[in-house]
């Protein structure tokens, strides 16, 4: 089953050289093989989903891709850059940005500062320019501020720009996490359960804005989500993880009808024995 799915992937990937090429990465914690042989070919502006039951290793995959964990084996390429074993901030600079399952904003910074912080990673002016307020430094800070305000405007957060991030409502905090990740100018955006805790109305808007982000910023999106209708609606392709193993990959329709996926989520019936 893995093999046939792999062939299909090659077929799709052959048309377009993948932007993010993950080749058989794996990691184990002691005796627990958290993720094994995980492969993924994400094209530019692709919108892929990563699903699986609780504890399947989805967030671990994100942590491997962003350098929080170092993979035991395998290769990660973004364009022509090798990313495995790089530091998290280097990977972000290379073009992979993420959001967190449990929101990790900087609570005591303003909304604007949260976005500006993410936008400043390509800054060239260092300590000395900052202290003497050189022209270059001032220009950089001005551009940064405009860029951050523009981004906030796109997501309708501009009125909250000067509020502390911790004072935002839950839905707005989730949104701000996405804005902040976008401010790093990513090529690949990893969203870890962006719909968690949102009401149906907010989920609708989220689905639209994820599409909007993909089209407008031309980023590839990899989405972890438990909300099946949302995933099935917006994702082009879906990977299913269970116990760290990729059990299925394909279009939403294929995944929905796959026996192993149904078994992973619902268990196998007694009659099968």
């Amino acid at each position, binding site marked *: 089953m893995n093999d046939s799915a792999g062939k299909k992937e090659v077929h799709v990937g052959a048309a377009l050289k993948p932007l993010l090429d993950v080749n058989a990465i794996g990691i184990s914690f002691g005796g627990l093989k958290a993720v094994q042989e995980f492969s993924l070919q994400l094209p530019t502006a692709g919108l892929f989903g990563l699903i699986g039951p609780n504890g399947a290793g989805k967030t671990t995959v994100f942590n491997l891709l962003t350098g929080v964990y170092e993979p035991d084996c395998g290769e990660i390429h973004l364009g022509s850059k090798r990313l495995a074993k790089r530091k998290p901030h280097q990977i972000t600079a290379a073009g992979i940005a993420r959001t967190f399952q449990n929101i990790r904003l*900087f609570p005591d910074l303003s909304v604007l500062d949260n976005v500006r912080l993410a936008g400043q990673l390509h800054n060239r002016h260092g300590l000395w320019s900052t202290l003497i307020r050189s022209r270059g430094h001032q220009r950089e800070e001005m551009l940064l501020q405009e860029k951050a305000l523009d981004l906030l405007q796109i997501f309708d957060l501009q009125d909250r720009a000067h509020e502390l991030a911790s004072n935002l409502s839950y839905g707005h905090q989730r949104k701000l996490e996405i804005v902040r990740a976008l401010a790093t100018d990513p090529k690949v955006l990893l969203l870890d359960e962006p719909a968690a805790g949102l009401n149906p109305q907010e989920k609708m808007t989220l689905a639209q804005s994820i599409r909007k982000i993909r089209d*407008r910023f031309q980023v590839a999106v990899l989405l972890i989500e438990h909300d099946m209708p949302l995933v099935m609606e917006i994702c082009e392709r879906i990977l299913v993880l269970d116990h760290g193993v990729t059990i299925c990959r394909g279009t939403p329709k294929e995944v929905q009808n796959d026996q192993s996926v149904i078994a992973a989520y619902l268990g196998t019936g007694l009659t099968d024995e």
Partner: protein
Amino acid sequence: MDNTPPASQIGAKPRGASRAEGEIAWNTIRGMMPFAAGIAFAVLLQFFLTGMVGLYYSRIVTDIGIAIVLAVSLNIVNGMTGQFSIGHAGFMTLGGYMAAFITYYGSMCIWGDKEIHGGFLGSGEWLFAVSCIMGGLFAAGAGYVVGLPSLRLRGDYLAIVTLGFGEIIRVLLQQTGKLIDSWAEVKAAVNGAIKEPLKDGVWSELIPPPVGGSIGFDGVPKYTSLFWVYTILTITIVVAYRLKISSIGRAMISVREDEIAAQAMGVNIARQKVLAFVIAAFFAGVAGGLFAHEPGVIVSPKDAGFQRSFDYVIMTVLGGRGSISGVMLSATILTALPEFLRDFEQYRLIVYALLLIVMMLVRPQGLLGIHEIWNLWPLRRGKVPVVAPEAKS
């Protein structure tokens, strides 16, 4: 449009570009203002304060200035990056000894004695200024070394390392040799050592360095004046404030708030932590130079101990983490208070402790929390602030 991600174009569009350029030019001129104002203030203090309030109170004002430099610089580490350093007095004393070493022996070398030379801004004072900067650089080097463990340790563990650093400095300084009194003796000792480097006991006067041992570095020319203290205070505050409102400061604050998220947003947290330690140690070292040359003070090994470090930690905690004006306020109060409680000298520490306990119960975020005093000013609320002015809860 299709090849380049529009995300990178955001903000790049010219929006009143010429207006922005004009603003930048104006800002560059305005950037000099705080220095000019600070130095003018320092000159005023220098020439008029002693005449107005007398020597005793002007000494207190000097002490307050030095305490503010130390507390504000410590706040870059403890407040902005959220590392917990309780070895700040170690950096101060290290810088102080270095500066004192330069003026003491430098003075002997140049003029043949250890008296004060030149008046206000005279030659002696420039030697003193250079020595303070050297003391700062020396302390900054130590700050780099102490900053390295902060990459692996956090919270209590880092606190213990920095505490240990201060104690190590104290013990090392106690083991130093006695001062050499005249330049002729210094020359004799150095020449003797160079001529026959392998002879027994020939290095004994030079190694360990002759900086006074456990009784302290006595006889340093007393150059510290209100002018120098408040000039350096100005520089410290401007540097701390510019750091705070810039990208570098934001990166430091993000390390305090959430290291994992900071990394994910492209912040090199190792760099930010070490940078904070180095900058803070530099200003501590400069303040140490001021302290060592203050009239009536003999810088001694016990100054590096944890007692003094704690004083500065308390100032930053009371002032509010990352709040420059809050820390200035608390440093002023905590330096002046013991002087006014002089009649109850023995209760001083009790008052300190009680104050801390009450503050932690009533206002755990410190006097001003993360805010600056000018952000609380109602007229500024409409403007674009750097840290959100809305009071939290």
